[in-house]
């Protein structure tokens, strides 16, 4: 029995330990993006490998601690789908040569995301926002993925607008949700958490807070609100603003706990990223610590 108790104490230690994570002063997401881009298209490389290395060595600077218990409470996920289609928008090309529009691929990937998330826990709920001229709250929270999938099927892309105002988006979200208030959030498990997944698809239009960041800052300060970003873009080149946009999107991660992912017309990678986004924000590692490889030699 004492062996059981010892094993239990060890288990408790692992399960209840505060995750101490090292977070770069320089944004790791940006470094991995730029080094990848310089690999794909030499002409667009803005950072050298040594810059990436330097940033990596910066690692030991800042420590982040979790401020909420690692409980798998129900998630209320707000999917924000950008439907703007820019001129020169290229399709996804699969290995067998078939082509699919960017919006079609997003719909397929989100369908699998919704079905998988529901399979993990039927308590999770989903809402749908469409991002165009101004954001539209298309479907309120439901734990039936079919309802969202059905709405998604009906969405068409639209002509790209000249600007994207993130203030409007977070104003809308703040109006629709009610953040839990726990007297001691470090200890008390929340009844639910809110997670916004922004799926941004433009390569020419920089998203901005045209009316200030007040509401956004208020939301992001809550230990029960999370923001993830999936940036789907054209191949970066001098004619587009992919890198600048990605910088801005990375900058939205003020807590260090967001996932900011990017993909350029690679269908498999898009679906893989949607897989990463399945992770529960209170239990998942930080993006930097993700290790999915299951090797025989481990």
């Amino acid at each position, binding site marked *: 029995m004492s062996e059981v108790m010892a094993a239990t104490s060890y288990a408790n230690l692992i399960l209840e330990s505060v995750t101490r994570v090292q977070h770069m002063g320089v944004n790791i997401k940006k470094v991995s993006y730029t080094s990848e881009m310089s690999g794909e298209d030499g002409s667009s490389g803005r950072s050298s490998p040594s810059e990436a290395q330097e940033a990596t060595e910066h690692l030991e600077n800042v420590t982040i601690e979790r401020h909420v218990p690692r409980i798998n409470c129900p998630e209320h996920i707000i999917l924000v789908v950008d439907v703007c289609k820019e001129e020169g928008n290229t399709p996804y090309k699969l290995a067998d040569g078939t082509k699919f529009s960017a919006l079609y691929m997003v719909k397929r990937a989100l369908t*699998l995301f919704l079905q*998988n998330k529901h399979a993990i826990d039927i308590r999770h709920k989903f809402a749908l926002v469409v991002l165009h001229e101004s954001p539209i709250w298309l479907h309120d929270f439901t734990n039936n993925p079919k309802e969202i999938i059905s709405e998604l099927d009906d969405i068409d892309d639209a002509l790209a607008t000249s600007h994207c105002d993130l203030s409007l988006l977070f104003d809308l979200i703040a109006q629709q949700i009610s953040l839990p208030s726990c007297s001691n959030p470090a200890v008390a498990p929340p009844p639910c958490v809110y997670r916004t997944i922004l799926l941004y698809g433009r390569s020419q239009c920089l998203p901005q807070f045209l009316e200030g960041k007040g509401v956004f800052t208020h939301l992001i300060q809550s230990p029960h609100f999370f923001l993830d970003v999936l940036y789907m873009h054209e191949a970066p080149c001098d004619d587009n603003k992919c890198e600048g946009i990605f910088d801005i999107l990375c900058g939205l991660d003020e807590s260090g706990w967001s996932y900011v992912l990017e993909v350029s017309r690679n269908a498999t990678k898009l679906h*893989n990223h949607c897989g990463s986004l399945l*992770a529960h924000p209170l239990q998942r590692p930080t993006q930097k610590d993700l*290790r999915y490889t*299951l090797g025989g030699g481990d």
Partner: protein
Amino acid sequence: MEDKSSPERSPVMEQFIRQVDYIKLNGFPGLCSDLAEITGATESLTVWNTRQDNGERVEPIREGKPRDELLIKVPFAGTNLTIRLLFYLQEPWMPPDMSFSDIHFLSSISIKDLEEQVPSLNNWNCSEDDIIAQLLHQLLQLYKKYQIEKLEDDDVLQFEYQSLLKTLKIGEGDIEISVNGAGHRASSLLVRLPLSLQDVPPVLVDANPGSATSLLQVTFQGNEGVFVPKLHLSPRVELLIGGANTLALPAVPPGTCLMDYVERVLELLEEKVRKSVLCFETRKQFIAQVLCLFGCAVIEYDAERFNKVVLLFDVKDFHFLTFIILGPLFPQQQAPKIVLQSLYHNSPREPYSKELTEQRYNPQWTPEEMVKNIKEVILANVSAFQQSSIRTS
């Protein structure tokens, strides 16, 4: 009871209804109070007042309207005691008339007993919400005392009663005993077993917030100490160890000593509790081990009951979800269930998934060995899973 069709109720009626509601809300007296019932009077009640001991019928005397009567059925020692209270709502300061299904009880009560042991009758404060509840409680105590006095005529039962108190280290409030009259129903007793759930992790019982009560009912047959046992468990206990009717009580061969038997039943229940807690702790250790090895691939896990963990893996650039589910019979009789699920393909309305059923398993493995085995099973099957997910979509 409540006359909802009448547009106005008098304050007296309102108070009466509040008093009845108080009982329903705060519980009835007695060990098996969950099964107690309270209703308005029915015609069948007149049966009690119509037979005397010599069997002659007398006319029932009923005054007031039917809704001034209350029938309270209180389980007691494995039988039922029904108490009938007749109120005079036109004179609410009057305490109710009483009659009982056990007619010998009423005839055994003296005025002195009532004065000393049922003080609410003398101090009938009709404006107190709990006055009827107090009365019921006092009446039941009096009934208990009456039964214990009857024990003096039954040496064997008296001895069993005292032994139970002493050996189980319980109080008189933990046993109800019903001693048979000559030629009438069998004696029976109900004992609240000292089964403690205080070391049980709250998450295993919190879904049911009631009391954690385990009652053993014993009905005696004949004079030779033969008895029939029956177990009652409150929902909170059943949530932990299973329904009372699923637990096989030990057989009772002739000559079984009641005391030994009760101790065996208590040990059986304690063992069940220990096993449930051990299963929970094993699940926790298993999940902790999974997190230790695969924490950087975790998608979600059940952090309360440790029944499930979902991971995301990449084998040669093929990404897939892995569900590991621990059933109620894990670890002794059930291996962890492993299901691989696609991120890319539907089949057609759900993501393609496959349960890996062929795996070696040894319940004696440590959590570390179990997790290592699961990794091997996944690696051995992922290629086939990849092929069939493409074929099926």
